[in-house]
């Protein structure tokens, strides 16, 4: 069975949360970086919603994954693209789902190879808990606790929608 969560409600919540964090921290010109693939769609959408000028960044974390020694190299790796100087900038790092936290660790390592940012704000559309590393999002559109047979997936890019799948 496949259920749908209302994407627009989640995006509204994510945007509101982000605006609040930016204001609290006094960040006025952040750059946004999405983790491929879902995070890139979100970076595009939120970049527009937040009225940010300039391009957003795309990260492919394949070269930084900690499971290379188990599964080898992702055969569909694409170049990362951070078309701006990250040195001293405030970065909004965004992904569709956070679970173990391993993807975020890899993404932060990669960001630091481009230079030293002033700060990173982590935003995710959905937080599924089940963390394995001490990494927490600053903003999450929704926190969900999934049953063992449930999977959640962001589909896109146009239109964006969330699929909640149940396997038998």
């Amino acid at each position, binding site marked *: 069975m496949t259920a749908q969560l209302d994407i627009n409600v989640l995006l509204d919540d994510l945007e509101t949360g982000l605006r609040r964090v930016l204001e609290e921290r006094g960040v006025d010109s952040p750059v946004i970086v999405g983790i491929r693939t879902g995070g890139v769609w979100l970076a595009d959408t939120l970049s527009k919603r937040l009225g940010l000028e300039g391009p957003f960044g795309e990260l492919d974390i394949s070269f930084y994954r900690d499971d290379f020694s188990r599964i*080898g190299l992702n*055969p*569909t790796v*694409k170049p*990362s693209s951070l078309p701006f100087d990250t040195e001293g900038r405030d970065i909004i790092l965004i992904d569709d789902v956070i679970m173990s936290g391993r993807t975020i660790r890899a993404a932060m*390592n990669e960001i630091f190879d481009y230079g030293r940012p002033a700060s990173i704000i982590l935003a995710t559309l959905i937080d599924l808990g089940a963390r394995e590393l001490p990494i927490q999002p600053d903003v999450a559109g929704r926190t969900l606790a999934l049953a063992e047979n449930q999977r959640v997936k962001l589909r896109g890019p146009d239109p964006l929608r969330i699929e909640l799948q149940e396997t038998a």
Partner: protein
Amino acid sequence: MTANDPSPNHLQLTRDGQLRHFLTLDGLERGLLTDILDTADSFIEVGERTIKKVPLLRGRTVVNLFFESSTRTRSTFELAAKRLSADVLNLDISTSATSKGESLSDTLLNLEAMASDMFVVRHSQSGAPHFIAESVTPGVAIINAGDGRHAHPTQAMLDMLTIRQHKGGFGGLKVAIVGDVLHSRVARSQIRALNELGAEEVRIIAPGTLLPRDVESLGCTVEYDMARGMKDLDVVIMLRLQKERMEGALLPSEREFYRLYGLNQEKLALAHPECIVMHPGPINRGVEIESAVADGPQSVILNQVTNGIAIRMAVMSMAMGGQVAERQQKQSERGTA
């Protein structure tokens, strides 16, 4: 009765079709060659960062095993391995200093004792990397950095990357390889890659003494006359000519070779106006190519050097990845058995 599978894929691919050694382009299909080019594109981006290093091969040891010395090739492999965070050991072993066969087996035994994860092999004997891949402990990846006259697959793939960057793809391309194909491992790998990637025509331009027997069977046409051969070309690849070819009656003189098969502006003008000029280097100016062409707007010779590091990073990380994935799979099979 054929005793052997002519394609070495049983050696260089895992059961799932992932690369685990990189010995030759023979038998590798277009999809995999494209994956190598795509992965290399990602590594080119890495090379543009402040920190040009990724952690893929962290904690692994790569041994550059060069039985034939080549500072240039060894350096690009070394840099590639270091950018993948591997530890690198360079061993230059001159074949003339040792008795061939036994020393190779003995050398391997010693190196395996050092727990190496990858051997980058250059050897004057065709097939030496195959021999090493067959005799090495499972889990160690072998990368061919040039063997005899057989293959130089990383060089050919970096040339393919250069062509793709300039031409967008391979469909409809007319490519010529000019010069000493007989002794060239690079040419053999290039012909194979161009055919598999879908080039329209691969043309060899050389005198009869520098052609292998039945060269057309490799997938190319032959043209003795360079002026005719230059017609409509999109890419012209000049091969290096070794001085010793004048001995043994293969060529009369460098001067005559340059007059007949050297690339100058006049001859280049006969090709397509956007024809690019390539050379695997190091260049003999005035023997294979005129300086005005080598340094001219159609030359992409310097690009080739940058691409070399990215291709080697791609191949090394893919082969190491294949090895680790295979080991993991075998372990889990043993676990469930």
